[in-house]
């Protein structure tokens, strides 16, 4: 078990400042997901913890001990890489047992440990095979097995599922989560996929341009986004942002100020048919332009006072292009953002 603390971590490569004073605390045994667009610094932050990059300034502490300048091999950290990074000249068992072999563990101990982990990951029938004889999913499991065989208190994942197809990805997501419940190491998982972030993390840290924009549980991040960037980055389908006269009519004092944006997720918008309840607000005339059947639900794309708005409706009802209707929103699930600062005014 390891309690991790990043304090004021900065890192630059040449003239590009990748990390700009990151402060982050990760509880012992927690599964934290670092999410953000490409180039936001999430992988660099992970690599500073692994010891593969040295921060320019700041400190990293594990259980109170400063490890900022410690060699990677002395850190009690293992890592799963995006491209697996399996040793091609070793078979699966040798790959998984390599770190134990370096620790001069006995052959029996190594064999037992490798078998135990291989059984856990259901790859015990592949132990004699070389990496090139494995499929992508199997390679990923071996990479995971190699990281787990070391029994480190911290396990890092650098976009480990991005090379897999959608089906395998969702399967591995569940397996990694299940493993975390079993082995209780502190895990940090880097991804650019907001779906992975919200489904896997105990907490999520959203990064942008080398700064932690918000940290919280998936639910907090989804329902109480601090700013426009987080609101648009997390959640699929993406949040609607509406401006203009509609916003000024909202029953919130902040909405009267100029330069405000109404942010509302597609599932918080409804077609106004019955009475408008106390926490609801009618938005005005909406014209359907396109409908997408997503199975259980239908996504409507249409225009509200010249602005594109998407909403999710029950797929049992039929909607056709050109159809006009009134929309209403759930005010408890709506947000108001200041356009210039990007901040959520309703928090």
């Amino acid at each position: 078990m390891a309690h991790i603390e990043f304090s004021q971590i900065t890192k630059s490569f040449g003239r590009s400042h990748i990390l700009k004073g990151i402060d982050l605390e990760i509880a012992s045994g927690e599964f934290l997901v670092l999410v953000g667009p490409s180039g936001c610094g999430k992988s660099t932050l992970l690599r500073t913890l692994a010891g593969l990059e040295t921060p320019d300034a700041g400190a990293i502490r594990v259980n109170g001990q400063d490890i900022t300048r410690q060699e990677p091999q002395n850190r009690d950290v293992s890592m799963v890489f995006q491209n697996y990074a399996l040793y091609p000249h070793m078979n699966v068992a040798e790959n998984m047992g390599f770190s134990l072999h370096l620790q001069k563990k006995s052959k029996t101990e190594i064999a037992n440990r490798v078998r135990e982990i291989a059984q856990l990951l259901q790859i015990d029938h592949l132990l004699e095979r070389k990496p090139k004889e494995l499929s992508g999913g199997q390679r990923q499991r071996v990479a995971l097995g190699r990281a787990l065989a070391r029994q480190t208190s911290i396990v890092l994942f650098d976009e480990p599922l991005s090379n897999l197809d959608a089906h395998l990805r969702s399967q591995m997501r569940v397996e990694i989560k299940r493993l975390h419940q079993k082995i209780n190491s502190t895990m940090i998982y880097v991804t650019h996929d907001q779906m992975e972030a919200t489904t896997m993390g105990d907490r999520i840290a959203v990064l942008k341009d080398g700064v932690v924009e918000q940290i919280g549980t998936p639910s907090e991040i989804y329902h109480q986004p601090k700013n426009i960037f987080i609101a648009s980055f997390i959640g699929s389908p993406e949040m609607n942002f509406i401006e203009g006269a509609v916003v000024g009519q909202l029953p919130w004092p902040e909405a009267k100020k100029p330069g405000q944006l109404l942010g509302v997720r597609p599932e918080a918008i409804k077609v106004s048919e019955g009475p408008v309840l106390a926490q609801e607000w009618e938005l005005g005339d909406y014209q359907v332009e396109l409908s997408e059947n997503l199975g259980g639900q239908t996504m409507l794309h249409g225009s509200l006072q010249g602005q594109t708005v998407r909403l999710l409706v029950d797929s049992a009802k039929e909607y056709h292009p050109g159809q006009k209707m009134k929309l209403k929103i759930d005010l408890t699930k709506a947000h108001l953002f200041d356009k210039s600062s990007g901040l959520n005014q309703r928090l």
Partner: protein
Amino acid sequence: MIKRIFAWLSLCIFAVFSLYPMLYVLSVSLRGDNAFQTQSLEIFSSQSTLKNFVVLFTETDFLLWMRNSLFISAVTTLLGVALASTSAYALSRHRFRGRNLMLFSLLASQMFPATMLILPFYIILAKMHLIDNFWGLFLIYSSTALPFCIWQMKAYYDTIPKELEEAAVLDGCSRWMTFYKIILPVSSPALVITALFSFMTSWSEYVIAAVVLQDPELYTLPLGLRSFQASLATQWGLYAAGALIVSVPVLILFISISRYLVSGLTMGSVKG
């Protein structure tokens, strides 16, 4: 169909062109009468004999030349592989001042024909008292083979993902252990090519050896074979028998590493 026949015919013609000289050498080596020119095209005749081979091993210094050549080639190969694999690794993985200049200089040195360098080499070796000394040859052979070997190894290292080394470091390897436990085994195709190139540079080299080595005790195979040639009487039978034996180690080397050779020569185009 016509294309196939044409291809087969062309291949057959090329095969005859490349094989015939070797078969002719074999035929000369089997003639007992030292006859080089003959009207007959047959390779084996009723007069074929292994006498030249017996004489070669019993009445000449052939074994001494072979030992010298093997020793020189082995040391050159070891030096070539050791220096090329380590320096190419540094050039591939580290960024330091003068790196590009160094790479360019290595490439530029390949533009000079080896014969042009004989005089400067001779002067350098003479000043270092390395004339008539194997070390002189090691120095020249290694330095002429190294630029190609370094570029070859560097090109291969460049295709190895950095994450492989990072995984090794996290598994507990030091920098050196990462190099010899992970990078070197993964680079075996490139190492084999490097070794072969270094070996070939020295094994059949004549011109530089003739300049550096004057003591017959130090003669290598090409120099030894040359000694069969005289202005009045050349011992063609012995010459041919020796030439055949010289080619055997190279042939064995090529056959035994052909698997690596193909993957090594295509490396870079297909990452793997």
